[in-house]
């Protein structure tokens, strides 16, 4: 019988495994959507807090709306990212995954993509909420917002997933994840804020393009690096 079993299994290509892990994480996210809602609420609260810190000055708030929106998204993203490996560690599921003939890259890309999807939704809601709260007049095409939103979220989720795995077994994960991640994503945040800002306020000198370029480069570097280094990080 063992002979027959090994014949009927055909270990999927790692890209297919990536897809399987992505789907698994999204299903998990959907099952625990209460947590995602909590993150959205948290991000919304951040937006309100910013307006309290600045004072009821509509022009000022509208001017800096891009910054507040992305900061709220970044702060709530740490909640999402630390969750990402908590569900793996809780009952030894990650160990189970690693004991299967699964390419570590599949685990990284699957989880990072899932985080990207959720983070994009989160950021999208925050963006809409922020524009509404700070009475921002949108001039650019909505699709351009979407592309910046996707790039910015991707820039957080790739290094975020890697660092989430890295800190998963540290004693102080909740503390270490932002300590390591925030300085790292400064370029990404800066670019996302600037690009969004130019979309809001108009971009007469066409500077938004170079920030988008920076976002793309940031993403290319960290999505590639994550795949290379993740195997090392989870290896025993």
């Amino acid at each position: 019988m063992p002979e027959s079993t090994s014949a009927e299994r055909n270990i999927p290509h790692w890209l297919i495994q990536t897809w399987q892990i992505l789907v698994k994480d999204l299903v998990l996210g959907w099952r625990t959507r209460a947590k995602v809602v909590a993150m959205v609420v948290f991000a919304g609260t951040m937006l309100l807090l910013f307006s309290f810190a600045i004072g009821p000055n509509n022009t000022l708030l509208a001017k800096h709306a891009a910054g507040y929106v992305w900061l709220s998204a970044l702060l709530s993203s740490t909640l999402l990212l630390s969750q990402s490996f908590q569900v793996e560690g809780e009952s030894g599921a990650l160990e189970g995954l690693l004991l299967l003939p699964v390419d570590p890259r599949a685990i990284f890309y699957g989880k990072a993509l899932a985080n990207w999807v959720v983070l994009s939704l989160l950021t999208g809601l925050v963006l809409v909420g922020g524009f509404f709260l700070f009475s921002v007049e949108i001039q650019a095409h909505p699709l351009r917002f979407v592309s910046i939103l996707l790039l910015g979220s991707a820039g957080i989720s790739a290094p975020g997933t890697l660092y989430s795995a890295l800190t998963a077994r540290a004693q102080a994960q909740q503390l270490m994840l932002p300590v390591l991640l925030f300085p790292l994503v400064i370029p990404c945040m800066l670019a996302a804020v600037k690009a969004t800002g130019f979309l809001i306020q108009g971009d007469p000198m066409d500077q938004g393009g170079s920030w988008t370029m920076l976002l793309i480069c940031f993403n290319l570097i960290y999505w590639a690096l994550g795949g290379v280094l993740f195997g090392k990080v989870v290896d025993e």
Partner: protein
Amino acid sequence: MNPWILLSVAHAQEAENADGGEDVVETPSAQTEPFGEAPSEAPTVSSETVADPGGIPEGGFIGNDSYGAIPLGSGWGYVWAVYIVTWLTMLGYAGYLALRNRKTS
């Protein structure tokens, strides 16, 4: 006109551009192209363009971007602060290493 004076004026006024031959002097607010003209070399006033060819002003250095916030000749206090702290840092780190050595041996 002395290029250095031009330079400091350019800084103080945050002028958009300064004419420096075919090169354009970048100012703080000016945006550089992402990967075309590398901004890394001279993010501020690109001094080659302002200084005379051959470059280095006598007794100065290229890229000197002070714009006269202090009267010339003063500021020894800052100088001493820098040098003393530099040496204290070196001494302090050496001491820390020595302390570590003692602790472990």
